[in-house]
């Protein structure tokens, strides 16, 4: 059974189309990264999956309709919407008490274990903690939940580089175990490259790229072309071209690696480079999340 399955998922806010009838299927045990500019519909898509917003079209998460069965779905789904959503008045001990009191799959000992590795005090209040510590607390709560699907919407927004690194390290080492599924959106794409198993680009409410990371690495190749081969390289139809230190860097989609090797140094491009090529720079002019 697919973990998430959507057909013709559509959502409009007034005359703005946030989701323009997307189809999507996420199998269990995958780590899917959804990348897109502001206003691409990523957050709306996640909110629909979590039962936070009504939608048109078909959507099933772990076999349930998230809109009508949110509370039951949350037995098996955990999510971090963004780092600032823990209320300021909440104490660490109260957060633990509450989640333990309402969530049948919350393992308090495990959460304590995560917290022991941080500087967070049990009697501390969220309002007195730094952004990074709040993120650590939220992650400790979420990772102690034996969920089948974890959804993270910009979980590292506003965190410094050390916290971000720690965040993804804990997620991979302490949490992910191939029976769980993780869906994550972020702007910090470079940090996700080695983490993801699947990649999806969204732009203006549509999915513009949907592929596994293995396929990504064979499909997209970047060549630092030697000047004498420039014309030959362009003849192969690069999807994008940029200049670096006076040399042309050409990005190819679906061209054979051996063919490219003759033209210059071939390497796997970064997600960000492919993103720029596929989505194009004009999308950034839009701005405004949701």
């Amino acid at each position, binding site marked *: 059974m697919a973990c998430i399955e959507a057909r013709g998922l559509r959502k409009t806010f007034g005359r703005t189309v946030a989701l323009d009838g997307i189809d999507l299927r996420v199998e269990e045990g995958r780590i899917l990264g959804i990348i897109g500019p502001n206003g691409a519909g990523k957050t709306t898509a996640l*909110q629909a999956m*979590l*039962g*936070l*917003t*009504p939608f048109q079209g078909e959507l099933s998460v772990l076999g349930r309709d998230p809109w009508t069965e*949110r*509370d*039951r*779905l*949350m*037995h098996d*789904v*955990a*999510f*971090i*919407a*963004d780092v*600032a*959503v*823990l*209320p*300021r*008045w*909440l*104490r660490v001990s*109260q957060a633990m*008490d*509450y*989640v*333990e*009191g*309402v*969530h*049948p*799959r*919350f393992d308090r000992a495990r959460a304590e274990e995560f917290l022991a590795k941080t500087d967070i005090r049990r009697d501390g209040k969220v309002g007195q903690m730094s952004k990074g510590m709040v993120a650590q607390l*939220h992650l400790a709560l*979420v990772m102690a939940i*034996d969920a089948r699907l974890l959804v993270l919407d910009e979980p590292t927004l506003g965190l410094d580089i050390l916290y971000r690194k720690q965040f993804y390290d804990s997620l991979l080492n302490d949490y992910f175990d191939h029976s769980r599924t993780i869906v994550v959106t972020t702007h910090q794409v470079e940090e996700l490259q080695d983490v993801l198993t699947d990649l999806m680009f969204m732009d203006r409410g549509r999915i513009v790229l949907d592929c596994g990371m293995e396929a990504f690495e064979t499909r997209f190749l970047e060549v630092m072309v030697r000047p004498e081969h420039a014309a030959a390289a362009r003849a192969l139809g690069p999807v994008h071209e940029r200049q670096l230190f006076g040399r042309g860097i050409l990005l190819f989609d679906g061209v054979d690696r051996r063919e490219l090797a003759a033209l210059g140094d071939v390497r796997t491009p970064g997600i960000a480079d492919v993103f720029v090529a596929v989505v194009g720079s004009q999308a950034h002019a839009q701005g405004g999340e949701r």
Partner: protein
Amino acid sequence: MSPAVDAVLEPAAGVEETGPRAAPARTRPLYWSVRRELWENRSIYLAPLSVAVFAVTALLVHGATMPSHMPGMLANDPAHAGTASVSYRVGGLLVLMTTFVVAAFYCLEALSSERRDRSVLFWKSLPVSDRTTVLAKATIPLGVLPLITVAAVVATQLAIFLISAVTLLVLGQGVAPLWGELHLFRLWTAMLYGVAIMMLWHAPVYGFLLLVSGWARRTAVLWAVLPLLALGVVEKLTMNTAYVASMVTYRLLGWYGKAFAIPAREEIPFSPLNRLTPGRILGSADLWLGLAFAALCLAAAARLRRQREPG
């Protein structure tokens, strides 16, 4: 309250679908949702308690500044007829009024503050239904606050009585006449009844305020008050009547005249048990219509909480 029972049994519904995973621990979503309201809104118990402390302090100060009054007042000297009970009445009344104000403001904030600080995204990430959440919030004015009020009033009156008793003993007078006059246990029984009736009578007010809180993006207090005020003013200007005003007054104060046979002026309102008229208030259609309205408001508030976009 069958929704409450359902809510408590909620996790049981998930048990059958756990499959190979470990059996889930027992959870109590309603209980913990009420607890979290108390964590967030400490005024729920701090306000009635501080008024109680204030009432006791006021009596102490009064006694200390006017020592000549004390013996007569405490012992119910004919020259000070009824004054012994006055401090009990005023203390109790202050706490009751405080409770109503705290409850009203709590309701107005209950569903809008979690949207404003976006913490609703955290609460909704947990397996607690919107119905359970709204029910937990309604439990504060309808269950928790009345109990705290009764406890605060009982504590206030006990404290006042103890202070009076010690003063009388120091002055070399007996305590028995004072105790005999006060009938504290009867007073408390009547108060428990009064508070319960008041809570039921005010339920539609709280339900309405919760609904406004779930609906209004900001300044819920204005959305709750202004439409009624505008209606009242328009009515007064166009027809020179005051139905809206009297309707509001009736909904706020009408319970008292139905729940008690109005006592003569110098009597203690809650004291005589034979002045309770439970038959009259429970037979009143207005009480039941109000409760039905409250239930509708809560159902609508739960629906709104599901539909409202966060932020």
